[in-house]
């Protein structure tokens, strides 16, 4: 009967775990693990502890779910925030902007990270959600460094992406076939690029990938490939193209001279309270905006000289 008793033990063990721990998840577990565990990162211990609003009320963990592009930013700031505020738990997950918006709208997550306005997606009760814009991300058309073209006019860009122009020699490059690298039809990145770089024109079929890392790799390795990437992902393997002679950099984006950019949103259902509020205020604070956000390749929201709403109307700040 050895096998049977082993099985029963295993099942009981699992059952006990379930019973013991399941209900505890919501209850306040004021564990204050002293920050000297076996392995810990060298979290940049903040020198100035001027955040007087350190709420040490440990309660339910804050969950921030959604865009994978925004995830590194939220994870890093969450780490910093938790280091400053013992006992607060922030869990950051991915799943895509759509998942994030659905989860926060249904109340399953505290914060929904999104690359797009909630209004842009049908099916989300945007009036129930409060938008917190925490950063700006610029986007540029990317090609392999082997492509000799540095600049494209808007019309050329539109013609390339709609499939009218199919060879680089038509825009001043070598005789090479143009290969389009797209995002999936539902992608917010694609929607933004389409809206502001292609004036709303529909993209032609191409190689479709969702993750920025894969797109970058494909562009770097496929001769003649062109796609679009957030500025934070550019490195030596790909080259950013200028649009109408305007380079995609922080200055041009801040003044909207370079129009291809989007907000990074963190939505809450209704106004945030307690730890969630403190966390959002922390992200919008000068300290995080100037340091973490720029380090990760985003643009601080505070630097923007213009504001843009869900329909795309631009107003001076």
């Amino acid at each position, binding site marked *: 009967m050895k*096998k049977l008793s082993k099985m029963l033990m*295993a099942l009981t063990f699992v059952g006990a775990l379930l019973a013991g*721990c399941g209900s505890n*998840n919501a209850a306040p577990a004021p564990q204050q*693990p002293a920050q000297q565990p076996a*392995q810990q*990162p060298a979290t940049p211990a903040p020198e100035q502890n001027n955040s007087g609003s350190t709420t040490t009320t440990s309660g339910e963990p804050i969950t921030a779910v959604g865009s994978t592009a925004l995830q590194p930013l939220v994870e890093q700031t969450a780490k910093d925030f938790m280091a400053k505020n013992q006992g607060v738990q922030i869990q950051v997950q991915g799943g895509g902007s759509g998942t994030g918006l659905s989860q926060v709208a249904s109340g399953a997550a505290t914060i929904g990270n999104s690359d797009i306005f909630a209004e842009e997606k049908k099916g989300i009760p945007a009036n129930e959600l409060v938008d917190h814009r925490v950063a700006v991300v610029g986007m540029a058309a990317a090609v392999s460094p082997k492509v000799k073209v540095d600049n494209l006019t808007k019309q050329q860009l539109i013609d390339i992406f709609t499939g009218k122009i199919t060879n680089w020699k038509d825009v001043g490059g070598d005789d090479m076939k143009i290969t389009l690298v797209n995002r999936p039809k539902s992608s917010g990145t694609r929607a933004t690029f389409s809206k502001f770089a292609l004036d709303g024109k529909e993209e032609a079929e191409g190689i479709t990938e969702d993750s920025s*890392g894969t797109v970058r790799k494909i562009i770097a390795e496929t001769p003649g490939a062109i796609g679009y990437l957030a500025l934070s992902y550019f490195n030596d393997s790909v080259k950013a193209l200028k649009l109408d002679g305007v380079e995609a950099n922080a200055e041009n984006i801040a003044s909207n001279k370079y129009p291809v950019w989007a907000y990074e949103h963190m939505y809450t259902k209704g106004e945030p309270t307690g730890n969630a509020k403190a966390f959002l205020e922390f992200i919008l604070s000068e300290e995080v905006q100037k340091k973490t956000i720029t380090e990760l390749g985003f643009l601080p929201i505070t630097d923007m000289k213009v504001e843009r709403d869900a329909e795309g109307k631009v107003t001076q700040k």
Partner: protein
Amino acid sequence: MDRIATVVLTLIAALIIGTLIGLLGFILTQGWHKLNLDFLTSPPDIVNAGGGIGPQLFNSFYLLVLTMLIALPLGIGAGIYMAEYAPDNKFTQFIRMSIEVLSSLPSIVVGLFGLLVFVNMTGWGYTLFSGALALTVFNLPLLVRVTEDALRNVPRSQKEASLALGITKWRTIVSVILPAALPGILTGAILASGRVFGEAAALLFTAGMSSPNLNFADFSLNSPTSPLNPFRPAETLAVHIWKVNSEGLTPDARDVADGAAAVLIIAVLLFNLSARWFGTWVYKKMTSGSN
């Protein structure tokens, strides 16, 4: 004809081994330079180079243990039912087919199902336990199938001899047939655990894509930073590779992904070897047979 067949088969084996060695060699050589104690134990860094995979490595193993704890008893139990108790009628065939269909579900569908049921509905949130349950769904078909096949393949003489001795049916199954079927079940279990190590899409929505800072000195089961708490989010190595490959912003993202892949392969190899060794030992103990 015999000669030709032998040559062809040997060529096939050589081709497979060659491809495997090439593949493994490629992964290991790409990632070898990253392997040091620091990489294996420190947590990942999001902004700068130099992050490690410590928590993720632990999570992969712990998730494996949890999944097996749930899936093995269930799978073996269902396999026993299918092999010994189920009447041979259309309904049983239907059950068999539905089980096989389960294993062909796209991982993302199981992940989203897990999100809805094991994460949201139960209120647990993103946890190891939700991930283990989602992975159980995947692996049950394989385990049930190999258990059933292995049980059926045990020579009838063994079963009849045992029954003739007056041993009850259940005890026969547990003490005689099951041990004899152990090698087959072990194969299934190893295949299943390989799948657990390598699965990413289903875990994105259940166990999560991040891990809290783990305090390895904390052994309680309740604390959110205790590594043993099954009710915390837990990014595994495979998920981490995916994450770094898709949205990694550190300058060494490529290296981290390669290193992690190499570590994963080595971990799987070590695990497979030790599982096989352990299984053979148990088999010898329980049946006094040698295969």
